[in-house]
Each structure stands twice: as structure tokens, then as C-alpha cells.
């Protein structure tokens, strides 16, 4: 080899030919650092996710601690259906997901859970939880479980002393309405059940009828119609009863005597405090126009209107208010003279479908409410009613003593009304009624809470 070749292969180390190894080493160091950084980033992300989970769960725990439910009422309906009323007294909306019903009287105890999906907003009261569940008799423990993991329990029947809120609306028929009966089953909480008087208008058919032929001297009697009209049920049923004109048998010359009709219908036993009375008739004639009158004394005839051959639909006229307890409705043909020759050839008739008086509506209240699981064997038993805004008219409260109604309040005041009912409360079932006398205006009264307060 020559010197130049020697230098290429085994040449002398030169100080100015260094750096390649350092670059390679630096690259590896960079790779290692990058790998470490990547792992660091991944770990930071994982830690962040974990911290977020911890934060979320911490918030849930915080919310859970602020959940609270108060049982305002646990009752059973007449069909043994459970009816739970609760109020959310916590700060957040509560989602109730399970209902537990534990019968502690059974041997062995029974424990049943029913799925629920009930949301209760803060300060909201929810009732009818869970009215689809049939429960047995005995001492029950009712448990509500929330989505956030809280459980709330109540006993049924309630403990020896306590507030027995009214269970349900009472027997029908009733007069008047509740706006929100469940409002009486909790509180006082400002949620009112407004009791409003209902209308009690009546329709009355004639009690009797009479051929009033003496109004036109010499007029003969027309055919009897009473069997049909007096029993009619106010309906336009096209079952018609006919009154036929008959020819006068006296007065004037025989050739000038008219076909005549005068018939009276008597409506008796009416209230002397009627405020609005109408006579309703559906009838038509075979051609002649017939006239209708009313009288309170069977002497003074007051004209109402006419029935024609085309008036086969409901017609009504107002009868002015008075204090008479009997009203006469008189039906006459169109002739005022018995023999003036104006109606001598045709015996017209009037076909009456229905005839009645509508006695104007009056307003009154008669609403029953009752307990079906009242605690009746305590030494002290008081009926408590908390009222809101009250009408000026008196609202009376009666209790059922087993044989009849006894008045315990002649009127309710706004606020608390309490009375000892221990002498009337003798069974699981206890009922009261709200009553008013009838008048011509629908009044209303607010009831916030109705319950029995009992203690040993």
C-alpha cells in the first residue's frame, strides 16, 4: 500500500474529524426524551380524567347529602291502593326510583320493591305515589329510594300520635266541586283546595191539569191529556199529546158557535224564593194559533206567547219572579168569543211534546270527605281544618256520627278551626261534609289542610 492508501485505511486520528457519534447519541437521547414526554402527557391526561371522575362523584355526593323528602301523608284508598304524598324539602330535584313496601306484621316479614320514575322539584309536593300498588293490611313500612342513593321511610298506619290527613273524597251525589282535593291531604302549605258551590237547578212538570172551559162561557170540555203531559221527562221525544178543540154547546146561534179550547196546567209546591223561572214548551198546532198564559192566582192571565203550526221546537218564556208557590200555565185557542162565527168548522188541535218549568239554578255546597284508616282509639281526637280565603256566606261542617249528621262548625274562619270529635270518631271510617245553604251566586272557600290530630 502506498502512503495515501495507508492514510485512508489506518490513518492517524484527527481531532477535527469528530461529531458523528455525538449526533447519533443525541438522536437517541432525543428519542428517549420524546418517549418519556409522551408517557408523561399520557399520565397527565389519565390523571386529569381520574380527577374529573373524582370531582363528578364528589358533586354527586354533595347533592346526595342535600336531598331530603318529608312524608306528608301515607294512606290507602278504599281499594287498598297505596297513596303516598311527599314533599321535597331539599335543594335539588329528587328522582325517586324505588318504592319499598315492608309488611312488619306478617310472619315472616314481607319486603317488596316496586320500580318508580317520579321526579319531585324542590318545595314540590307530589301525591298518589304509587296508587297502582295494592297493599295488605297490617303495620307497613314504606320506603322511597332515590337515584342518588338516599332512602326515606315512613310507617303506615302512622304512630300512636300524629296527624291523620283526610283520605279521600266522600260519597256521591255531591253538590259543588273541589279544585284540588289532594291539597287538603297535606300542609298547611299554602296549596289550597277551593270548594265551589254547585248549581242545583230543577225542572218541574205539571202536577195536575184541568179543563178550564169556564173561562169562555158555554165552552164544552176538551179531551183529557193529563196522562201524557204530566209524566213527560222534559225530553223532546216526539211522543206528542193532543188537546182537541170542541164546539161550544151554548151561547149565540148554533151556527155561530166556535171550536174552543182552554186548558190549565198546575205547577205546585214551588219555592217562594225562586229567582228565575222559565216555562218551556215544545208543541205545534194543526193550523190555528194557540196562546199561552201564566197566572199565579188562576184569575189574572198574563200573556206569554203563541204556538203555531210551525213552532215544533223548544220555546221558552220568562215568568217574572214572585213568591207564589203555585203557577198556572193556561193554553187557549185563538178565539176570545164563544159564538162569533170565526171558527165554526175545524176542530184544531195542539200537539204537545213536553211542557215544564225550569226553576232557575241556585247554588249550594254539599261535599263529603272521609278517612278510611282513621286512628280512632286514642284518648284525644280533634278535627282540624286550616282555611284560606273564605266567602262571606257561612260554610258549615258536619260529622257523621254513625246514624246522622251533626254540625261541628256553623262556619269556618280563615286560619285554624279545631274541634273535639272524639265522641264521633269510633271507627276506621270517619266522614265529614262541607255544606252551605242555597243562594243565587256560586261562592267558594279555600281549604288548605284537613286532618285529625290524635294522641294518647
Amino acid at each position, binding site marked *: 500500500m502506498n502512503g495515501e492508501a*495507508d492514510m485512508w*485505511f489506518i490513518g492517524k486520528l484527527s481531532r477535527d474529524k469528530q461529531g*458523528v*457519534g455525538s449526533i447519533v447519541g443525541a438522536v*437517541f437521547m432525543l428519542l428517549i426524551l420524546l418517549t418519556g414526554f409522551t*408517557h408523561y402527557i399520557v*399520565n397527565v391526561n*389519565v390523571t386529569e380524567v*381520574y380527577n374529573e371522575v373524582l370531582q363528578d362523584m364528589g358533586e354527586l355526593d354533595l347533592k346526595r347529602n342535600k336531598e331530603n323528602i318529608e312524608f306528608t301523608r301515607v294512606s290507602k284508598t278504599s281499594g287498598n291502593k297505596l297513596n303516598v304524598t311527599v314533599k321535597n324539602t331539599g335543594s335539588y330535584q329528587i328522582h325517586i326510583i324505588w318504592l319499598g313496601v315492608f309488611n312488619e306484621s306478617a310472619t315472616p316479614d314481607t319486603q317488596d320493591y316496586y320500580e318508580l320514575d317520579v321526579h319531585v322539584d324542590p318545595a314540590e309536593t307530589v301525591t298518589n305515589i304509587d296508587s297502582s300498588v295494592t297493599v295488605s293490611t297490617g303495620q307497613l313500612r314504606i320506603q322511597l329510594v332515590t*337515584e342518588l342513593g338516599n332512602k326515606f321511610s315512613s310507617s303506615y298506619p302512622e304512630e300512636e300520635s300524629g296527624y291523620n290527613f283526610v283520605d279521600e273524597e266522600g260519597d256521591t251525589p255531591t253538590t259543588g266541586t273541589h279544585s284540588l282535593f289532594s291539597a287538603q291531604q297535606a300542609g298547611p302549605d299554602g296549596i289550597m283546595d277551593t270548594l265551589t258551590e254547585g248549581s242545583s237547578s230543577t225542572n218541574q212538570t205539571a202536577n195536575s191539569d184541568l179543563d178550564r172551559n169556564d173561562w169562555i162561557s158555554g165552552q164544552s170540555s176538551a179531551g183529557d191529556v193529563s196522562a201524557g203531559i204530566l209524566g213527560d221527562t222534559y225530553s223532546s221525544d216526539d211522543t206528542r199529546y193532543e188537546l182537541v178543540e170542541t164546539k161550544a154547546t151554548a151561547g149565540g146561534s148554533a151556527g155561530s158557535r166556535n171550536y174552543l179550547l182552554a186548558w190549565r196546567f198546575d205547577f205546585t209546591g214551588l219555592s217562594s224564593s225562586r229567582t228565575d223561572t222559565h216555562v218551556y214548551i215544545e208543541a205545534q198546532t194543526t193550523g190555528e194559533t194557540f196562546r199561552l198564559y201564566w197566572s199565579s192566582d188562576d184569575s189574572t192571565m198574563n200573556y206569554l206567547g203563541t204556538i203555531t203550526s210551525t213552532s215544533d221546537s223548544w220555546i221558552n218564556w220568562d215568568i217574572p219572579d214572585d213568591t207564589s208557590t203555585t203557577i198556572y200555565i193556561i193554553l187557549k185557542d185563538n178565539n176570545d168569543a164563544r159564538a162569533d162565527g170565526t171558527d165554526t168548522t175545524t176542530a184544531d188541535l195542539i200537539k204537545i211534546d213536553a211542557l215544564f218549568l225550569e226553576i232557575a239554578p241556585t247554588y249550594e255546597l254539599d261535599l263529603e270527605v272521609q278517612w278510611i284508616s282513621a286512628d280512632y282509639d286514642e284518648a284525644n281526637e280533634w278535627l282540624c281544618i286550616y282555611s284560606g280565603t273564605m266567602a262571606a256566606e257561612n260554610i258549615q261542617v258536619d260529622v257523621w256520627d254513625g246514624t246522622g249528621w251533626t254540625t261541628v262548625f256553623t262556619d269556618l274562619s280563615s286560619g285554624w278551626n279545631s274541634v273535639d270529635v272524639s265522641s264521633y270518631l269510633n271507627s276506621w271510617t270517619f266522614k265529614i261534609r262541607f255544606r252551605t245553604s242555597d243562594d243565587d251566586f256560586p261562592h267558594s272557600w279555600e281549604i288548605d289542610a284537613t286532618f285529625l290530630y290524635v294522641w294518647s
Partner: protein
Amino acid sequence: MTNSFFRNKRGVSEIISSLIIMLIVTAAGAGLYAYSLNAFSSSGSSFLLQTSGKEERAQERLLITTVWWNDTTDYLNVTVLNYGKIELAIDAVYIDGGQVSASAFTDGKGETVATESLVSVKFTSPVSIVDGQNYEIVAVSERGSRYVVYWEA
């Protein structure tokens, strides 16, 4: 002789030396990188696994809603609600510190419980149940979450 030998050798060329150095550096770098990769990977996996387990456990919530003792059959029935964010399974129950043996369970142990669901865990108590006495009951999930309730028989 020796001095003469070294003096006569002029060493390898720069290229060869560079190659040798590169080889050494590359090998050392690769080894170091492989080691660090393995170290990062194993520590990362371990961290991930550990964090994942802690995260799941953090999401677990259980509540004993009721305890029912059937004195006829001597079975204890513990109803557990899963109100957490993930499903869980009851792995163990302790009564006054005594663990209920696996063979004593008749229902509910190891059963997957979805969120917002209930599970009824039924077993024979390792301690005798006396009416009116209080007992500490602990339910433990497979991930290690626990709930304690004090129950009067």
C-alpha cells in the same frame, strides 16, 4: 520491542474509527432507548391499570336499603342498591366482622348489578341472629367498595 511496535502502528483511519464509534454509540443508544421504552411502558401500564381501577372504584356507590331476617329459615337478606355510575357485583358480606363464607350464599353474590338496580343478597349468617340485638353488616363489592349498616334484628 513493545515501544517499537506501538510506535510503528499509526492507528485506524478516521473513517473506520468513525464507523466504530457510530456502531458503539448506536448500540448503546438503542439499548438505552429500549430500556427506557420498556421502563416507561411498564410504569405507564402499571399507572394506567392502577388509575383505571381507582377510577372505577371511585364511580362505584352502593347502599344497603334494607335487611330482612327470616327467622323461620334463618336466612339474612340484604338488599343493595347500586347508585353509582358503573355496574357492580357484591363479593363479600361481613356480619360483626365475621365474613360470610362463599358456601353460605344462596343468592346475589357475584351477580352483576346495573346502575339504579337492586340486588338481593341472601345468605346464612356466620353469627347467630337474636331478635332485638344490633349487628354491623358490611357489604363489599368486587372492586373493594363497601357499605356499612347497623341493623337491629
